[in-house]
């Protein structure tokens, strides 16, 4: 298959950007297909990859943390490295073994083939269990995208490293290391009401792994566009947000505040905006360290985030802002997906389950919006749902 960006001659910059956005949306959908309740995590992984920042996911074992990263990597055709760190993990297990032939010649070089220094997407489970030797080398790799060890000095193609842990670390040294992961996402086991979906999708995903539908070039193109974003319209609001957070005792390091701009710019780019607006401020919530702090901040920042809207990262924007626009976008997406998947056999169990899901969507719309405040697109979606239920349920 030819590279879509090369077929038919060179593309205009806007065409190439549109193609990249479409490819990434498809990658998002593919990566999320086999997962329940992890769409926001997948969206944040992609956002960080475009922004060139790293992500920490905190949650109990068995909550699909590594599966989410693996699926993203497959849909992006990325060079992937994954490892479960332990207290006795040797640096060579992560960065590569020492080249013995060169060592005999008196030079300490590392064979990095297939190891973290050559990865484009990486997942490190139990990331805080690594030894000082590992974490120190990792710091340089994460910060500078360079691997330095003995005589080996290589540039690393790493777009994103996702670290995982059951809990945030206590202790100043590890907190400093955790601070290198700009975004923190907290995951819980799937809700009771979604267990049937989890069982069905989990079974199906074994048989149908995600398909590659984007490339690193798409990611890089969007990253370059994000770096050129005009932040002037949104800087003032961002500064206000930081002041509000400080006033409530939530202090972001200067490094976090400055780097949060990369997330905002990336969110705008993925939403198709060259100039970030207030609709793109929502990623700041994910840059706040600590689950309680994020939950508290969601309340304090409600007014700032109520305009949040992102056609590509709908669920992450919704979960950050709970704003009406983000909720409406998410519900429209759910309704459209349901209406497109109507089972033909009205007597089947699948049809009955589908009707219940459609009812659930109608319930969320009516519980979430007063009739007079329904956005136009959601009102249309509601009308389609009501019509479908009238036909199918009677």
């Amino acid at each position, binding site marked *: 298959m030819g590279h879509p960006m090369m077929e038919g001659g060179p593309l205009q910059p806007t065409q190439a950007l549109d193609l990249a956005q479409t490819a990434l949306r498809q990658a998002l959908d593919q990566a999320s297909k086999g997962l329940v309740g992890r769409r926001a995590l997948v969206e944040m992984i992609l956002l960080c990859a475009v922004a060139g920042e790293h992500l920490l996911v905190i949650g109990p074992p068995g909550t699909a943390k590594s599966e989410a990263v693996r699926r993203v990597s497959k849909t992006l055709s990325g060079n992937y490295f994954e490892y479960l760190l332990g207290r006795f993990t040797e640096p060579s297990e992560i960065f590569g073994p020492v080249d013995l032939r060169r060592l005999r010649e008196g030079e300490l070089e590392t064979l990095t083939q297939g190891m973290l220094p050559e990865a484009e997407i990486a997942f490190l489970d139990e990331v805080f269990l690594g030894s000082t030797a590992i974490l120190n080398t990792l710091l340089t790799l994460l910060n500078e995208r360079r691997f330095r060890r003995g005589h080996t000095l290589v540039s690393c193609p790493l777009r994103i490293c996702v670290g995982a842990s059951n809990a945030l670390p206590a202790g100043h040294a590890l907190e400093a290391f955790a601070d290198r992961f700009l975004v923190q996402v907290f995951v819980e086991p799937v809700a009771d009401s979604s267990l049937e979906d989890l069982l069905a999708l989990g079974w199906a995903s074994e048989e149908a792994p995600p398909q590659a539908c984007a490339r690193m070039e798409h990611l890089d193109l969007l990253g370059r566009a994000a770096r050129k974003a005009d932040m002037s319209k949104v800087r003032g609001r961002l500064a206000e947000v930081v002041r509000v957070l400080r006033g409530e005792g939530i202090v972001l390091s200067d490094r976090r505040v400055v780097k949060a701009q990369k997330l905002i710019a990336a969110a705008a780019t993925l939403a198709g905006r060259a100039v970030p607006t207030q609709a793109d401020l929502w990623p700041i919530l994910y840059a706040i360290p600590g689950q309680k702090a994020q939950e508290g901040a969601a309340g304090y920042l*409600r007014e700032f985030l*109520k305009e949040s809207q992102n056609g590509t990262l709908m669920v992450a924007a919704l979960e950050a802002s709970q*704003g009406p626009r983000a909720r409406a976008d998410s519900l429209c997406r759910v309704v459209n997906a349901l209406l497109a998947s109507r089972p033909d056999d009205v007597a089947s169990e699948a049809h009955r389950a589908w009707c219940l899901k459609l009812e*659930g969507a109608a319930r969320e719309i009516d*519980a*979430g919006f*007063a009739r007079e*405040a329904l956005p136009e697109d959601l009102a249309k979606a509601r009308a389609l749902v*009501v019509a479908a*239920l009238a036909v199918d349920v009677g």
Partner: protein
Amino acid sequence: MKIPLTWSLREVPLVTRGLYAQGGAARRVARLVLERSPEGLCVVAGEDCLILLGPSDLLPWADGVVYLGQEPDAPGLWMPTTCVCDLHPVLVRQMLEPKHGLPLLCLPAQGLFVSLFAQAPLSLSRLGAWLAGRRHE
């Protein structure tokens, strides 16, 4: 001294934990509940209205149903998920409790206060009888 209660649209809806249905919507809801026999719902039945309380995914949908939630700052005070009183909810509860008791449902659009004190676990036979009584109207 009378203090008027005015209501606004809530920015973030309450967690859905019940529904209020009247007339045709109430009969539709009753039929759906009888078909599905969910466990874990409580009911308050009126002359021409039905109130169901329980987990959101057990609550049926029908056009015209009003979904309900409990004010987190004033437990016992129920209202439509999309409404918020312009007065602080604790004050509202203090004002209404002596006259109406708790738990209490406020329905601003209908101009009603409905006591939920008499809520009872759902009985399919009694709901069926309620529906049968309404079919003849």
